[in-house]
C-alpha cells in the first residue's frame, strides 16, 4: 500500500495534475479570507464594468488636492481625447488640402495638432465633401479647441432657494489627490458581470460549488456503480442479469437526455446545488458498473478467492477483502473521472438553464449561462466568461491528468 502511494507520487503526470488541482483548491479557500462578503451582492448598478480599480468621483472632489506638475500630463490628456478614428479623419482632411503625406504623422499628437491648427479652415469646401462630413470636421475642431484650452473646471452646487448655481470648488489641471484619501473605492480584478456583481468573488464561490457538485455526484455515481458492479460480477446468475438489464437500459438512452428530463421534472424551484449533484450522480453510474463487473468476473475465479471461500469467509467479507482491494486503484481512477465528468455535466445543464436555481449560489455553469444570456461574448466582455472557461478547463485538465498518471502506474503496459 505504502509502496503504491510512493509509486503514484513518482508519476510526473499525476504530480502535475495533483499540484494544479491542489493550487486551485487552495486559492478557492484562501481568497474568501481576504475578500469576504456575499458573492451574489450587486456592487455595480451598470452591467459589465471593466476590470480595474474604481474610486468614487464624489469623494475625490471632496478630498484636498496637492499641486503637481507632471511633464507629459497635457500631451497624455490630448492623446486620450484623440482616438484613432479622429486621427485618420484629420489626416484625410490635411491630404485633401494638399499637404504631402510625409509631413503628417498621426502617432505624434503634438505635431499633428500643430499642423491642424495652422491648416484647418472651416470655410474651406474641398471638392466632393458632403455637408455632413464638413459638419463632422467642425465638431472635431471644437472638441480639440476645448481640449487644448486648459482652463479650470468649476464645481457648483445648486442653491436650494433660488435655484442658482454657486461656485463650490475650482479644479485645475495641476490638482492631484492620493487614491488612499478617497474613502470609497473598489478593486474589481475581473470587473463585474451583467448584474453588477464582482466577477472574481463570484467565480471563486462558483468554482467551490462546482467542485462540491463534482465530488457529491462522483461519489454517488462511483458508490452505485461499485456496489452494483461488485454484486453483479461476484454473485452472477439472476442478480447479474437484472443489474445488467438495468445498466443496459441506462446505457442505451443517452445519459444526458435522462439528466435533462429529470432536471426539468424536478422544476426550477426545487433544484439546489445538492439536488443537481444527486441527479447527476444517479444518471452517470452505468460505465462504472460495467467496468467493475467485468473486473470482478475475472477476479472471482482466482485461487485466492477460492481459498477464502474454503476458509469459510462470508460473502461480504470475500467481496470487501478479496475482491475490492484488487480493484481499488481502478475505482479511484473511475472516481476521479466521474468528478470531472460531473463538473462538466453541471456546466452543460446550467448552460441549458436546467442547473441549480439562480438565486442561491453561483456555479460555473450558471456564470456561463448568464454571460451567454446577456451576450457578453458578442460585446467582448471577456471577463464575464473567459475566466470561467479557464477554471473549468484547469479543473478538468488536472483531474484527467491525475487519472492518466494513475493509469500509467497501475497499468504497466502504458508506461513510457
Amino acid at each position, binding site marked *: 500500500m505504502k509502496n503504491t502511494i510512493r509509486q503514484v507520487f513518482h508519476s510526473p503526470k499525476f504530480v502535475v495534475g495533483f499540484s494544479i488541482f491542489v493550487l486551485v483548491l487552495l486559492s478557492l479557500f484562501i481568497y474568501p479570507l481576504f475578500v469576504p462578503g456575499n458573492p451574489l451582492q450587486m456592487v455595480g448598478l451598470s452591467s459589465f464594468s471593466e476590470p480595474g480599480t474604481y474610486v468614487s468621483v464624489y469623494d475625490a472632489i471632496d478630498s484636498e488636492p496637492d499641486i503637481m506638475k507632471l511633464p507629459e500630463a497635457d500631451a497624455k490628456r490630448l492623446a486620450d481625447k484623440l482616438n484613432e478614428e479622429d486621427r485618420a479623419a484629420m489626416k484625410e482632411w490635411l491630404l485633401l488640402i494638399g499637404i504631402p503625406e510625409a509631413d503628417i504623422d498621426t502617432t505624434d499628437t503634438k505635431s499633428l495638432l500643430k499642423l491642424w491648427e495652422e491648416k484647418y479652415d472651416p470655410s474651406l469646401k474641398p471638392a466632393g465633401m458632403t455637408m455632413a462630413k464638413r459638419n463632422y470636421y467642425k465638431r472635431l475642431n471644437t472638441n480639440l479647441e476645448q481640449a487644448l484650452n486648459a482652463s479650470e473646471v468649476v464645481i457648483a452646487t445648486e442653491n436650494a432657494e433660488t435655484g442658482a448655481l454657486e461656485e463650490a470648488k475650482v479644479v485645475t489641471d495641476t490638482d492631484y489627490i492620493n487614491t488612499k484619501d478617497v474613502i470609497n473605492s473598489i478593486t474589481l480584478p475581473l470587473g463585474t458581470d451583467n448584474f453588477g456583481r464582482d466577477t472574481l468573488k463570484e467565480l471563486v464561490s462558483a468554482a467551490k460549488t462546482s467542485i462540491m457538485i463534482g465530488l457529491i455526484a462522483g461519489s454517488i455515481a462511483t458508490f452505485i456503480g461499485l456496489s452494483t458492479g461488485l454484486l453483479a460480477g461476484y454473485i452472477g446468475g439472476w442478480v447479474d442479469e437484472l443489474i445488467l438489464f438495468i445498466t443496459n437500459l441506462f446505457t442505451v438512452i443517452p445519459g444526458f437526455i435522462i439528466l435533462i428530463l429529470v432536471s426539468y421534472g424536478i422544476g426550477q424551484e426545487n433544484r439546489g446545488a445538492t439536488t443537481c449533484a444527486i441527479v447527476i450522480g444517479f444518471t452517470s453510474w452505468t460505465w462504472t458498473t460495467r467496468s467493475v463487473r467485468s473486473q470482478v468476473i475475472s477476479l472471482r475465479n482466482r*485461487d485466492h478467492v*477460492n481459498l477464502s471461500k*474454503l476458509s469459510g469467509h462470508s460473502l461480504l467479507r470475500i467481496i470487501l477483502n*478479496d475482491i475490492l*482491494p484488487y480493484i481499488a486503484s481502478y475505482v479511484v481512477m473511475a472516481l476521479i473521472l466521474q468528478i470531472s465528468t460531473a463538473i462538466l455535466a453541471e456546466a452543460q445543464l446550467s448552460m441549458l438553464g436546467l442547473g441549480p436555481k439562480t438565486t442561491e449560489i453561483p456555479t460555473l455553469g450558471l456564470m456561463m449561462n448568464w454571460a451567454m444570456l446577456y451576450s457578453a461574448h458578442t460585446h467582448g466582455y471577456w471577463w464575464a466568461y473567459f475566466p470561467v472557461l479557464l477554471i473549468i478547463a484547469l479543473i478538468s485538465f488536472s483531474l484527467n491528468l491525475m487519472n492518466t498518471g494513475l493509469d500509467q502506474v497501475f497499468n504497466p503496459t502504458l508506461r513510457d
Partner: protein
Amino acid sequence: MSDTKPMCLSGKGVTKVFGFGEKKTVAVDHVDFEFREGELISIVGESGSGKTTISKMLLGLISITEGQIFFQDKPLDINTRAKKKKYWRDIQAIFQDPFTSYNVFNKIDQVLLDCIHMRGGKRFSKEKKLEMMTEACSFVNLKYAELTNKYPFELSGGQMQRLMIARIFLLKPKILLADEPTSMIDACSRATILDMLLNLRNEIGMTIIFITHDIGLAYYISDKVYIMEQGKFVERGTADEVILNPKAAYTKRLISDVPKIYEEWDLSTVNSTARA
C-alpha cells in the same frame, strides 16, 4: 490395498458442461469414482482433460451439471452457505500456483489465524494461537518469527506452498485435494514439499486426492491412480496395476512420454514415506 476401508468420496455419472449451444464444452463426462478413506489417489491427465474441473466440483466451488457426489455414502448436500462451510471443514485444497493463491493484501498471520478460527479456535488466548501458528510453521520448516508481519508475496514459491501445507496442518481436514501443488516449483523444493505432504498425511490420517500431469510422480506416491482423458476416466486401479500393466492406449502413451530422467531421479525419501 483392500477395498474394505469405508467410503470417503464417491461419484456417479458426474458431469460438468460449460456454456451452451455451439459453445458447449463437456469438461467432465459422466465419470464414476470411489475414493476410500486414508488412500492417496492420483488423477493423472494432460492439460484440458478436466482434472481441475473435477477438483472444483469435489470442493463444491462450482455446481455439477448432472450426476451426484456422495460424501461418506450420503449424497453431498451443500446448497446453503452453512452446509458448505461445514463441508469445507472436511475438505481442503492446495492450489497449483502459490503466487495467486494468497490475497496479497492480507498478512501471513491472517492466513493462519483464519484456519485456527475455522477450527473453532476463535476464543483461544493469544498465546495459544501463537503457539499453534508456531507449531504449524515449524512442521513445514518455516520460522514463525520470520514470517510474522510479512506478506505472502515476500516469500519464495516453495515457501508459499509450504505455508499452504501449514494451513492444512492447522485445519486437519478429512480430505485434501492437491491440485498440481508442485508444478510451479523447482525440482529441489518439489521433493521437500511432497515429503511434507506425505508426513502430514501420516500425522493426521487424511485422504489425499493428488491431481497431476506427471505419471511418474503419481506412480511413486499413490495407492490408486485414475487416468483421465477428455473428461473421462479411461483407466483406474492401484498404482502397480495401472502403471506397470497399462491397458488403455492413452495410458501407454502417457507412460512412454515420461522422460528417462525421472527414472533416475532420486525420490528415495518420498518413496520410502509413500510405501511406509
